[in-house]
């Protein structure tokens, strides 16, 4: 039995420890928000958080994260998450397949760099989007950053 904590919930899974986290999430825990796109860590559709850091779930053995806190798109609160709110504001989404991974990557970036430069975004957001939402992704990240900054400022006052 393998233990896994996803979105605050504890699970016990009877699976091959070599199974990539992506397939444990999708086929065993039925959390389908995390997508398969390439299986080699290039497209970022499977981006999740492992202890708050963005990780490509297709490259991680489930046994290697059994003691970590995993967050998937289903674990977010869309109505209060600034990145998701910005996604709506800028109508980023087209087909919607890459968005969960993009959103997870963007949240992790903002955690590390609360007001990222364009170069920071270029370096961190290497996820592939075939619909071409890139410019709106950039806008949404900047907007989410200033939203968080404003909130923080207001709280400080």
């Amino acid at each position, binding site marked *: 039995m393998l233990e896994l904590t996803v979105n605050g919930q504890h699970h016990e899974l009877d699976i091959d420890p070599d199974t990539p986290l992506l397939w444990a999430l999708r086929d065993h825990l039925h959390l389908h928000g995390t997508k*398969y796109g390439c299986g080699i860590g*290039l497209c970022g559709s499977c981006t999740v958080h492992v202890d708050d850091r963005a990780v490509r779930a297709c490259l991680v053995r489930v046994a290697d994260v059994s003691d970590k806190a995993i967050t998937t798109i289903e674990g977010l609160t869309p109505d209060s998450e600034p990145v998701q709110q910005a996604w709506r504001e800028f109508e980023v989404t087209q087909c919607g397949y890459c*968005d969960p991974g993009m959103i997870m990557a963007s949240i992790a970036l903002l955690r590390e760099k609360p007001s990222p430069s364009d170069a920071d975004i270029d370096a961190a957001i290497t996820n592939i989007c075939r619909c071409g939402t890139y410019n709106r992704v950039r806008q949404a990240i900047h907007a989410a950053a200033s939203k968080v900054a404003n909130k923080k400022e207001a709280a400080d006052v």
Partner: protein
Amino acid sequence: MSDPVRLTRRAFLVRSTAAGAGLLLGFHLPARRKFAAAPMTAPRDDQPVEVNAWIEIHPDNSVLIRVARSEMGQGIFTALPMLVAEELDCDWSKVRAEYASANENRRRDNVYQSMGTGGSRSIRDSNDYLRMAGAVGRELLVSAAASCWNVLAEECRAANSIITHTPTGRTLSYGAVAAAAATLAPPELVFLKEPEDWHLLGTPVKRLDVRDKIAGKPVFGTDVDIPGMLHAAIRACPVFGGTLQQYDAAAIAKRSGVVQVVALDNAVAVVAESWWQAHQALQALPVTWDEAGHGTVNDADIRASLEAGLATDKAVIMAERGKPDVAFKTSGKQIEATYYAPYLAHATMEPMTCTAAVHKDGRVEVWVPTQNASASLDAAARTAGVDPLRVEVHNTQLGGGFGRRGANQDFTEQAVRIAQAVGRPVKLMWSREEDMQHDFYRPASMVRLAAAVNSAGQLTAMRVRVAAPSILTSLGRMYADGTDPVALQGIPHKFYTVPNFRADYALRTLHVPVGFWRSVNHSQNAYYREHFLDQVARETGQDPYEFRLGMLKEAPKQRAVLQAVAERAGWGEALPEHTHRGIAVETCYGSHCAQVVEVKVNADGTFRLLRVVCAIDPGHVVNPDTIAAQVESAITYGLTAALFGDITLHNGRVQQGNFDDYPMLTLAQMPVVETHIVASGDFWGGIGEPPLPPVAPALCNALYAATGKPVHSLPLSAHGLHLA
């Protein structure tokens, strides 16, 4: 199997005021669902009521609008309901969209008309009957309210899902009268609004699907989860046209989770408890193939066939005007160039997938991301050998389509066969590699263009030879004389004034499957033509923009977008050092589009994409924000292809497998995109594809301006032209 219930379809006349007073259009009223149900039951006040096939009104006043085309990112799940809602005069904040059922469509005598989603046709082909469905719905609701009050319908008006009796100010909601409306005979005549009366169309309405998509909620094809379902991974013969020869199921039988190995004609599938198990076992499965004699075909053979097409004297003339041969003999200057564009894969983010269940009673269900639910239904019925009415297609979300998931339903056929063999529901999902190597590719082609220019610098004649495989022929829709108008899309370029012209076509038959790829052959043909025109302009000392304008005197729409883009991009104004621009224009799928690409070229020859300025005329504007998003989308797709896209063949096999060897444009490489909608408002054009074709030639023209060298083949990476 009983016959389907025959539907009473009632033809009635609709006068479209937008199309001019007095013009009568025949319009088939979508039959109400109650006609298909037996016994007929009276609508109830506490139940949703179908006013017509497109519209369902709920007691809480919410409106469900059915969508027969597929949402694959292009925004029609919002735009098509907008067309209905505009005429229905309902409260947009209470509108939901839902897929129309392909089975219901068959049962109800094609009430939803075409379900095909390609050729940028969703709005331009269905706006008339969707607006009429809305108008008919509104008239029925108003009539029902009028009868309720025992007043004349002419004294009532509808707005925001409320009907008001104007003289008395009494009101009734749509929800309150929907049941009564559904029992009324549809009107003989409805009037469509004039564009100046639109309040919803033309406004930047927020997409209806974003809220769920950002939460990861929508079910894509790969997300389908059916009780008792198994997972399948598949490998088709790596050589197109080949078949399965032998495989050793025993070698993987004991692997954990493996349930069954299923042999298909040209493929083998492993079915397991999870996809990862199926995929791993498939990697370990020993398989041999009969390569059908194609196992030695290399890229050089493909090119040799295309070159032979340029040389043959057996090409079919497909467009001719004036006397091109005479004009060439008498012209002052002649310019000729040969171009090549490679095969391209669609590479949708979501690989091909389909879930199928073949039930013991002969019913078949498929859950599939499809660009044509009717085509999926037919494919499933044909494969399972059942009546199409026994098939239910459940449309899932599509992780991109771009032409891959419509005419070719190979994934649906495979899933049905596997589910049939296993006797349980099976979700088939292709790996990225399978997807890359078993596409229906944008055809590779070679084109020779020749221009004759007089002493005034005017283009007096052109000759064009196209050597390319034919998509229509591959679909069995070949023209009797061996021609294929789709292969020459954009080649006769009727909008430029070229007095003497001939285009001919040498059909190439190769073993690589070809299919519709976003903007189809406009994608490479516009590159050939627009890049060649820059060569002609530069070799005759003319400005590429002015040169084009000189040939657009009789093409006001193309002229307008070209002028708009030149003005917005500051064409002719000095550029910063090492910065260069290129321009191009194309008309396709009913819309006109011109773009300017700006690049900055470094000393080492690498370059950066700075900006793409786009002017587009789609006629009427349904949702301007969707148009902007589609322009950004098509530009990204087109740039990716122009920069990197190259599917090559070795030993009959596609050499690329994943995003490492078939790279995609990334966020860091993406230029600024500025979209200017120059809507002339007297036609309905497409938007998913028209912004794609201009970007490759505009980019090549910018690089040509920088280097002085034209780019005679794509991708740019094959010429050592790389992004910084």
